[in-house]
């Protein structure tokens, strides 16, 4: 009598659920996918054990270069034995804690200010103080810190310095150029267009060449400008053109009504831009802007070509020492992972911002 109500739930076949089901629907759905999976697995089985053998089992970690040449595996000693030169370059050995502290301050400030809801006046002042402290640590000369010439700045601090200030200074310049390009004044518009298109049409390397071989000719006799600063200016000039194009995208995406509403409130040009247009336009272009900033960060590695010692060039000079020649794979993997960590976290940040912005748009 109650048999009907006691019908047991029919479970789906075991092959369609759980791990098996997942494997079936994600790896072996269809003939082509099955073949692809098998090929990938076979190739992986051939190379991954070899790689692990090389990188971890047969590898040496804390030896001299001589023992490295005898080992069959990877020679991570090239990284561990030279880590301080690799990271800090020619900065005086006993003062290398200073760039280290400066870098820690910079990175933690960046991580702290990642959320734009925290951006306010107080944070601005904290940044000013932090910048001053960092500059003091790098340069020295005050409070008993020994002064260190900027020509000695090298390694990772130089990379971070070039990219951070490159980004910081190019951003307002880029915004100004984008506004200039949208301007109704023909002369200003023409200058902006020429600047942006000219810079975007040439590789960064020509700008760096310009800064290193051509710029000294531009200066009156007796005046010299530090090489690091010249490279820095080249990077700023270059990045600004790319920022300008991104910002222009944001300005064009703005609704015409916003401009009109601002004007009908009686705001003048600067008020209109500062209070109404730019805050909205810059926000919607945060993701592509971060893209530009990531490229700027990677592009600082090009200063190798004009013989500045950023982290890539210190690595190269370690590899030129006879004791360590022949281990470039290991050394480059180490530097690559440093670049990767920075770039990857920036791109993850841009994705987070993007999803945040989309979420807000949906809420409306």
């Amino acid at each position, binding site marked *: 009598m109650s048999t009907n109500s006691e019908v047991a739930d029919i479970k789906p076949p075991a092959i369609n659920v759980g791990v098996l089901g997942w494997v079936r629907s994600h*790896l072996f759905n269809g003939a082509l996918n099955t073949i*692809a999976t098998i090929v990938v*697995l076979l190739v992986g089985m051939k190379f991954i054990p070899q790689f692990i053998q090389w990188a971890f089992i047969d590898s040496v970690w804390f030896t001299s270069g001589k023992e490295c040449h005898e080992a069959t595996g990877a020679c991570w000693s090239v990284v561990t034995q030279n880590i301080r030169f690799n990271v800090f370059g020619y900065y005086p050995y006993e003062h290398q804690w200073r760039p280290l502290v400066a870098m820690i301050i910079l990175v933690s400030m960046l991580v702290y200010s990642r959320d734009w809801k925290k951006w306010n006046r107080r944070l601005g002042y904290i940044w000013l103080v932090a910048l001053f402290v960092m500059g003091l640590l790098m340069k020295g000369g005050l409070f008993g810190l020994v002064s260190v010439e900027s020509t000695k700045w090298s390694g990772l601090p130089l990379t971070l310095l070039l990219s951070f200030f490159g980004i910081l200074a190019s951003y307002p310049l880029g915004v100004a150029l984008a506004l200039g390009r949208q301007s109704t004044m023909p002369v200003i518009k023409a*200058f902006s267009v020429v600047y942006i298109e000219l810079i975007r049409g*040439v590789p960064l390397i020509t700008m760096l060449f310009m800064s290193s071989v051509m710029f000294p000719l531009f200066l009156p*006799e007796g005046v010299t400008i530090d090489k690091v600063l010249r490279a820095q200016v080249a990077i700023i000039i270059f990045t600004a053109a790319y920022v300008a194009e991104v910002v222009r995208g944001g300005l064009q995406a703005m609704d015409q009504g916003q401009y009109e509403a601002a004007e009908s409130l009686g705001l003048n040009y600067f008020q209109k831009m500062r209070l109404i247009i730019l805050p909205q336009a810059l926000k919607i272009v945060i993701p592509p802007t971060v893209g530009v900033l990531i490229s700027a960060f*990677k592009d600082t590695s*090009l200063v190798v070509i004009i013989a500045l010692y950023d982290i890539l060039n210190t690595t190269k000079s370690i590899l030129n020492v006879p004791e360590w020649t022949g281990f470039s*794979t290991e050394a480059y993997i180490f530097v690559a992972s440093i670049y990767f960590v920075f770039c990857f976290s920036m791109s993850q940040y841009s994705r987070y911002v993007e999803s945040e912005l989309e979420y807000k748009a949906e809420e409306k």
Partner: protein
Amino acid sequence: MITTNENHAAKTRFWNDEKTRGIIYQVVTAMLVAFIGYYLISNVQDNMAKQSIASGFGFLEKEAAFEIGEKSIEYSAADSYGRALVVGVINTLKVSLVGMLLTTMLGTIVGVCTLSSNWLISKLGTIYVEIFQNIPVLLQLFFFYALFYEAFPGPRQALSPVAGLFISNRGIDFAVPAQHFAWSYVVAAFLAASVIAFFMTRWAKKRQEGTGQQFPSFWIGLGLLAGLPLLTWVVCGAPTELDIPALKGFNFQGGQNISPEFSALLFGLVLYTASFIAQIVRAGIQSISHGQSEAAMSIGLKTKHVLSLVIFPQALRVIIPPLTSQLLNLTKNSSLAVAIGYPDFVQVAGTTINQTGQAVEGVALMMLVYLTLSLLTSVFMNWYNKRIAIIER
């Protein structure tokens, strides 16, 4: 109306008038730029006079007195700077064109892979994109260049995965058909077949649009492209002799050599740029709404036709503009050749600057060449973009 305007004009001071102000801003900017320009140029002239550096492009005629490792046209140290620079431009073009082609193919494949329903394939695609995108291209170039010198054996122990192909630290050497008059005819036949196939496809398309009759232009075109050169080859006596690289002394003689510099540059540029193109392709395909493929399937199109007739033509419109800028980036990044010693234009120009001291002219030439290349690429891509754009009725 006129009177109110006049009244208005009378009331506002001239510096409060928007138009006058605009003119003042512009005049000030123009004067500022002109002044800075004048100041810099006069400094350059002073400095060059003091260091007794010649000015102008007269140096192009002078003897270069340096060798170039890789050249596609005749060049020796006795030739002029002008010719050396032309060799550099050709080398830049060579690596850029080959790179553009390969990177577009690789990028498309990886982009499609990241969308694969196979978890393993799509994860591999994503990992590829993340790794290669987030490492500076210069570092990748150094890496591949070092790989060639350190991981590959010398010519004597060269790796030979296939007969006639040798990989050593002197680059890649492979066998090519030995010189024979037939080969030039074969190339001519192939070109002729391409032209015929092109016009045939156009005719077939027109006929299908007019009458609805289909024509197997793809297969016939393929047959033409393969058949005509083959026929020519047989008619000319079917030469099979190969020019196989052979070890003589410390290096290979004969065959065709691709230098380690070129290979490393090409590898680095292609792998780096492909990671960006993969993302563009993925975004392009994802931008087509699902309804499109459902609609296409519901009118009975086969899967391959859904892709080739509905999805791809639409995705292409989203893909082309960012693709253009990536291909331009590849051309510009090819200037990093200077760091690994491939004699591209920037390297030759750099040597020229060092020897003559004429930095201004040298850098101006560099900018001119790259601007021209950028302009040509974007003109071509804009033309293509216009061709595939939606034709609104």
